[in-house]
């Protein structure tokens, strides 16, 4: 069944259409939620709720448009809300809300040349992700997991482009700091020293 056909069926109230849509997008949806909320059970709940919400609002979905960005937008926003409600990193997040541009103060280091996908690096990135705010995680997930452009993220999160760029910059800087990348004469290296914390505190 084509996706457009599935959407048409769902608009007619046929659950076969919804089943097709769920099966097509469930992995991306639940993975997106998981990377933002960091909890499998919560991610599955959010993914379920997102599909229900999409079904509820399917008449708002315009035929001919790609469905994937729409459902990923729903799950991303729901995951951010769930993270906020779970009180994770609220201090950072609230501070960010109030004066995002202050964090332009974060240092810009050269990028590491390579970060190989190994189990150890996954663990370190995962731990680093948990130290980001929910919205920073969402921006990282949207940019690097979902492959969205900064301008698209800006539109989806309804935040100014400069804010999204800052979030990406800040998140990358934070990840880089925690992962132990050091700028040494223009070259980069990967250290497994203990994570460095942001001296900016809540701000």
């Amino acid at each position: 069944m084509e996706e457009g056909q599935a959407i048409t069926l769902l608009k007619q109230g046929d659950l076969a259409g919804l089943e097709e849509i769920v099966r097509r997008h469930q992995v991306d949806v639940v993975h997106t939620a998981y990377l933002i909320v960091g909890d499998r059970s919560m991610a599955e709940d959010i993914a379920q709720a997102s599909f229900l919400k999409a079904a509820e609002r399917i008449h708002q979905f315009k035929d001919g448009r790609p469905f994937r960005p729409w459902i990923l937008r729903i799950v991303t926003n729901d995951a951010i809300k769930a993270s906020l409600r779970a009180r994770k990193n609220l201090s950072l997040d609230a501070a960010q809300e109030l004066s995002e541009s202050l964090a332009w103060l974060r240092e810009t280091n050269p990028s590491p040349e390579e970060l190989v996908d190994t189990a150890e690096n996954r663990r370190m990135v995962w731990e680093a992700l948990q130290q980001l705010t929910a919205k920073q995680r969402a921006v990282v997930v949207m940019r690097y997991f979902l492959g969205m452009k900064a301008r698209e993220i800006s539109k989806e999160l309804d935040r100014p482009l400069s804010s999204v760029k800052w979030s990406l910059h800040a998140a990358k800087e934070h990840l880089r700091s925690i992962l132990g990348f050091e700028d040494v004469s223009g070259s980069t290296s990967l250290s497994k020293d203990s994570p460095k914390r942001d001296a900016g505190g809540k701000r």
Partner: protein
Amino acid sequence: MSEKPLNAILQGIANEGIPPEKVDLWPRVRDGMNNRRLVHRKPLSRVTTRVALLVLIMLVLLTISLTLIGPERALAALRGLLGYIPGIGLVNEPGGLRVLAAPVTLERDGITVTIEQALLDSERTVVIYQADGIPADAYPRAEDAPNCYLSPQLRLTDGSVLQIDRGQGGGWASGYESRLVYPPVPRELNEAIFFIPCLNDTSPGAAPENWELALRFVPAPPDVTVVPVFEVSASPEATVGPDEERAMGLYLERVIELEDSYILAGTFRQGGELPGSMVMGISAWPEITDADGRSLPFKTPSDLDLGSEEMGVFPWSYQIPKGFTAPITVTLEAVDVEFLAEATFQFDTGADPEVGQEWALNQEFSIAGHTVRLVSAVRMENGYEFRFESDPSVSMVSVRDSEFEPISGSGGGYLGEFTVGFTYSPPVPTGLLTYQITGLIARHPGPWTLTWEPPEGGEPAPTLAVQQPCLTLERWLQLIENPAPQLVDLKGKLIAYGRIQDDGQRLSPTNAGIFVVNLEDGSRQVLGPGTWPSLSPDGARAAYGWSDGLHIVDLDTGENRLLPGTTDFDYNPRWSPDGLQLAFVRIDDLNLYLVNADGSSMQRVTVGPEYEQLIGWLPEGQTLAYVFPGPEGLQLRFMDLTTGVQRDGFVIDAKGANATISPDGQMIAFIERVPGGMEYGLYVSRLDGSERSLIAQPEHWGISDPVWSPDGVWLIVGVSDANLLKPEVTPALINLDTCEVIPLEGIEGYVQGWSR
């Protein structure tokens, strides 16, 4: 950080956390749907969360339209022409409209539900209802806790039940207001029951349920006025472009003239152009200019209920204030178009490819005039990813594997460089694999323009003041590249968060903190690490937040003490005008608190689930100004601390609170999205949102943290470069009387307060 490896790592993390082969959400989703169907609800939209002011404004506009607009226009609608009622929307009833005979109210357990308005025509039924007095504990605290999502029904006397087609609304702490649109009620039926299964978003059983309000409909009285809607095709006064009906472009279809503005409504149509392709949507906001070349502000009305089921047709509507120099031109720069493609590529993975293995493919495809190059393929943990390059107008290609059915696909990247990936259930297919390129998405440039001139004969409107802001990016760049001596005589102290160590390094949290600048002698007093600084009104003390709580430091003695009872969750302390109290935000429960400056008598001043963000005090010392987020933006609210009475200001179109009250309490400076764009500007208005002026708009550069001078003449705002390589911020000093702009080059950081 290299993006591709990070993508692989994130994919690996997600796969480890929730293996794709174990994802099976369908039974849960199906059960969820079935549970909802048990309550006989069609899968229609629920009214989204709420902001009261928007709807209240609509009601005010409705009242105005009913009373002030001339009777000749009202008669037009009552004679059967298409009409418009602000807040209600378009109406069309050759036989006359019906309305609610009288507002209906029902009170249960202290909660009042009122049907304010209903309007019935041959095409739909619009009901506006309000619920108020809902206690805060009726709402769930946890995001994933169950809450009411069921929409009200109209139960007709013939036994049929109408479900909503669409809805919108806004809310406040104790209630909400909704505008619901139902299918038409048959003309012979003049009574109905408005059935509310549960109040929006409340927890099950936490508030009275199953409300039934009896409605009676009567013919609209003669004094009900409706603004006429001019169908442009039948309106010789309007000029429409483009000329050919089937050409791709902007089409103006309806014009509504209101007291102070016009609403233009129409469609973007693909027409017969670009055969084999499909327009996917309008890529950006249009620009609307008048004959003098001025860029006009515009809004998008939310009550027109525009929608199109037609492929390649995208409705739009823009509300433009009167006072422009006709004609006006609407310009749309680009649309995203998907072109169909038929191309195939193959690559041989070999018998046992390794994760991370890459194959250089270097195949070129010509699709719809675009050249796309398949650069490489990479073996991922559970699939393959293909990297493409193209000309810079292409954003994506659609790729299909019809032989081995992937469980998911992914894609992303930039214009001109993007990836497409597939994930398979194990085992991942190997050997000679074949993929089809079925489509290409590219930005199709216009521009498309539409020119319109209002009909002659109307009342002349005062010239629209399209204000040039004091600070533009062009002017700012000139000022910071050619700094002039600072000649103004400034007094008082500034407190800022910024550089406190001259370590030769770029500004960063490691060398930033709080400092005070004496404007009269230029001296600096560094207070050390900290965030969210605030100066007491007499300039003698500073409060700030840090990881152990809120601190107060005496600027003369340097004595620094932690306010007892405050924690890491407390931030943004703001001094009361008498310097005796501090208001602050506690993000542990998302509420505002008060504490005496000696640390005594801490009290919570707001309740409920809203995330209140503090703006500051009014100068009389008993009212707090704050905002909380809603679907339309940030609702400005004022709370009298002695009586607890709250009153609403206006809605700020922004996501984060970035506002401050003037020293005389009459004005507010705030950062808000510039109408029709994504960038932000600094505005000043009265507390009710009137007399709004755009003060600064440095295009895509960052702007934040407005601060008033004690005499209310100057504003300081932080202006930051959008270039990631230049993260510095420079405060801009703006004279509100003369529009003079002065970069405060000596202060590297964000000014947070200015005291005498």
